[in-house]
């Protein structure tokens, strides 16, 4: 691991000011990828040629006196469920193994226009369904901090890419915790913004009312720049916020004096003692920095898992119906169209995907809608009401991000329900649309990183970052793989 990593903010500064070329930065990162990704498997696809070409373009712009943008020359990795025109976008599924989208996701366009350089498409749990990246049809990703363990999921590849210094910033998607949980397990910062803050156009949908794209980075400041760049209204996404880009850097230095940090006293149990201990220390650190810790209750919190596992699969069952072998992707030849559908989907989808499609189909089916999907959406309202009440008393809430540190490969593979519990603390904010971020805060068992989660009300992403930055400044140093912390 590289203890002298350069942050994205610094890379961009260096490139824009002609201190170092984008080409040099890219070569460094590509070299690391070439050396280590064979083992880590963060990437489904490394874009070495494209990255070098783009770096040359960026350097030309700088030489010509033009500003390539706030992410000039910054190597960026993209989760392989974001459409990149002409470049394979697979969702780590056999059913999309060779698909090249004819268009770019909005996020991709915004990053490119900011000067970012894409180094590759990262591995994920197939169609973003999972918490360990073991559900990938192309093989798992390993946690760079301990390669016998999972990096978390579903954005395991993007988390690992940053943890292994393949890129200072990467992007994933979070439907039930798929950015925050792998961020915690890999010891990096991971952010799910307010629902609608980032365009979903070009993100291959899993749970449409839950999905959001967000950044991974080593520092809160880098995550802020990454998120700012991609956020803001997109007329191509009817659910995107009306406001422009989020302003996240402004409050990073403000500290937490006077802020009220909520402790959820009825939080569901299930976190391991080491994680609980670090979380407690996080409260202590914030109190020492001048914040007020207040007790709040969110009675419906524990019902989040159930509501999520009825709503998300239901939406997914509909979103994944378009994978039918007609217009794109894999097709299993058959004697009639109906058999073509069945054979293609049966062969093309992995077990977890099929499991969730069936659960979701059932939850929506005639006679069961009211008991399952309909009921779950009411529980969702209940949870949102409870959070609203809590946010009357607190500015942000603090919880563990993941109940445990990174677990071993194969540990939870036998029982899907066990895996689902990984998202206990992250899921509710997907249901409510509130933002959440995981910030590394010390280590737990086996010296593995622990992530603490900051939750904030909708569109208060800047306050969330403010608290996240404070946590970062006060976080205990990690003995493995930690670089400079905090913005300065």
């Amino acid at each position, binding site marked *: 691991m590289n203890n002298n990593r350069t942050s994205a903010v610094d890379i961009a500064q260096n490139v824009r000011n002609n201190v170092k070329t984008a080409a040099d930065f890219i070569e460094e990162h590509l070299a690391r990828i070439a050396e280590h990704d064979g083992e880590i498997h963060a990437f489904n696809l490394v874009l070495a040629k494209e990255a070098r070409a783009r770096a040359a373009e960026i350097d030309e712009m700088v030489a010509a006196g033009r500003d390539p943008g706030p992410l000039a020359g910054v190597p960026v990795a993209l989760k392989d469920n974001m459409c990149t025109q002409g470049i394979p976008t697979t969702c780590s599924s056999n059913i999309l193994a060779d698909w090249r989208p004819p268009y770019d996701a909005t996020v991709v366009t915004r990053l490119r226009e900011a000067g970012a350089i894409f180094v590759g498409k990262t591995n994920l749990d197939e169609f973003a369904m999972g918490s360990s990246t073991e559900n990938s049809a192309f093989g798992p990703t390993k946690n760079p901090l301990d390669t016998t363990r999972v990096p978390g999921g579903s954005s395991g590849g993007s988390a690992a890419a940053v943890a292994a210094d393949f890129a200072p910033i990467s992007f994933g998607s979070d439907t039930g915790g798929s950015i925050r949980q792998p961020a915690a397990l890999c010891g990096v910062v991971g952010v799910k913004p307010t629902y609608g803050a980032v365009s979903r156009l070009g993100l291959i949908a899993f749970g*449409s009312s839950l999905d959001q794209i967000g950044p991974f980075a080593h520092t809160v400041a880098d995550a802020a720049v990454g998120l700012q760049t991609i956020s803001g209204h997109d007329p191509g996404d009817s659910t995107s916020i009306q406001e422009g880009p989020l302003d996240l850097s402004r409050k990073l230095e403000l500290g937490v004096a006077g802020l009220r940090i909520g402790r959820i006293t009825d939080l569901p149990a299930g976190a391991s003692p080491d994680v609980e201990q670090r979380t407690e220390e996080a409260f202590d650190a914030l109190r020492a920095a001048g914040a007020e810790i207040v007790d709040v209750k969110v009675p419906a919190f524990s019902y989040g898992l159930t509501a999520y596992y009825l709503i998300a699969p239901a939406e997914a069952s509909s979103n994944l119906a*378009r994978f039918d072998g007609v217009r794109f992707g894999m097709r299993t030849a058959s004697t009639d169209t109906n058999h073509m559908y069945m054979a293609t989907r049966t062969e093309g989808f992995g077990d977890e995907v099929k499991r969730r499609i069936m659960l979701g189909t059932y939850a929506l089916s*005639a006679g069961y809608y009211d008991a399952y999907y309909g009921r779950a959406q009411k529980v969702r309202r209940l949870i949102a009401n409870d959070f609203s009440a809590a946010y009357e008393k607190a500015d942000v809430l603090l919880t563990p991000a993941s109940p445990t540190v990174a677990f071993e490969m194969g540990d939870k593979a036998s029982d899907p329900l066990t895996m689902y519990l990984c998202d206990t603390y992250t899921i509710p904010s997907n249901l409510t649309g509130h933002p959440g971020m995981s910030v590394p805060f010390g280590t737990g068992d086996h010296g593995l990183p622990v992530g603490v989660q900051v939750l904030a009300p909708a569109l208060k992403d800047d306050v969330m970052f403010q608290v996240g930055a404070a946590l970062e400044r006060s976080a205990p140093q990690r003995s493995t793989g930690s670089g400079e912390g905090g913005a300065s």
Partner: protein
Amino acid sequence: MSITYVNDDAFHPSNDDYERWSKDGWEMVVGLEVHVELATKTKLFSASPNRFGDEPNTNIDPVTLGLPGALPVLNRQAVELAMRLGLALNCTVQKSTFARKNYFYPDMPKAYQISQYDEPINIDGWLDLPDGFRVGIERGHLEEDTGKSTHVGGAGGRIHGSDYSLIDFNRAGVPLVEIVSRPDIRHPEQAKGYINELREILVAVGASDAKMEEGSMRVDANVSVRKPGENFNTRCEIKNVNSVRSLGRAIEYEARRQIALHEADEPVVQQTRHWDENDGRTHTLRSKEDADDYRYFLEPDLVVVDPGIEWIERVRDALPVLPAERRAILADAAGQAANSEAVMVVAERGQDNYVMDVAKLGGDAGVALKHVKEAPELAEQVPVESVATLSKMELSGVITASQAKTIVAVMIESQNVDPEVIAADLGFEAMDNSDLEAMVDQAIAGQPEAWEKFCAGEGKAMGALVGAVMKASKGQADGKAVTALIQTKKPS
């Protein structure tokens, strides 16, 4: 999906006064579902052109093709047109939401159709037929159209026996409004009248060109039969009706088919049936019981549409005069019934304005209406002043009706549009009444048998007498005046 009506007799009391179709004591109960393509420039949820007849798969985009990651964005003009047609059909325009209707079919790119389910944009309207019969409208909602499949290798391009199919997605995503009527129709002529009137309304408000033959208006009929006053029985949905005439035939066939089943104590199976124009029958397509469970749920990628009172009133204020009102105005001016053939034909052609313009210049609307009906070119080619003058000449008896007809023909065919000049050129002169009376006396004297029969009460015998007068006058006598004169000579 639709509301289940058990018995509709209370909807519009005066509907009872209209003729119902019946056979062997059974009556038909018919509701119509009409899909209308909206006349927008672009599709409902994406900016690809809404155009018919282009090369296959040239009006496509990620949304149209249902590509992964694509997201719908609603077309404001489609909402405006849906509101226009809703208000023209007396509907309440309400806050509405979109829903996914999930099913697999190759021309359905997402394997779900975005439609409206719980909360459609238009509800609770009605359409009055020209004769006053009222058909209720349950709802009108927005939804996207599917692509088009062509089946290769089977007989007549049918699915059955085909080797493969080819899909064109140009039509996928075109905006539709589905208009669902209440099951108020009781006669095939009412069904046809409903479609004709609906079409006129849609064209008048600019919502659609509504051409059944081109597919921009598609009609499905829900048909059942019952003994009058009893509850509704099982119905069947009839598809593949491609013209108004076919609609009448299909409904009648289906009603008879179901009556035969009821009479034989056999069940009517709820199913979709396919009208075959060639053999004049409906055939089983699929059983509704086997149909997919659509698993409707709110479309998470779109947000609520709440037009608000201001937009609604703006649309209402901008509505043009609707066909029914145009007919009423024309009928009133011409002194005829609103559903008289002349009024209906001329208004449908859009030539009512011409007749009203004639009236504004002091011409006689009734006379003008008659001529425009008979000679549509009049309204296209001849100035209103000419027709105004002509109608005054005819009304005052200066020229006869048949002379007027001749003048009309001349005005259409030549450059000469001055009726007075034409009349003079053709030697049309008013017949003196005393000359006329002399001719009538001569005719009576010359046709003794006819006169005897006429006096004995045979009205038909009048014809020979009138004919004799017309011959003697070389066609210049006014037929009406002749008839009147003959009547006065009849011994009382």
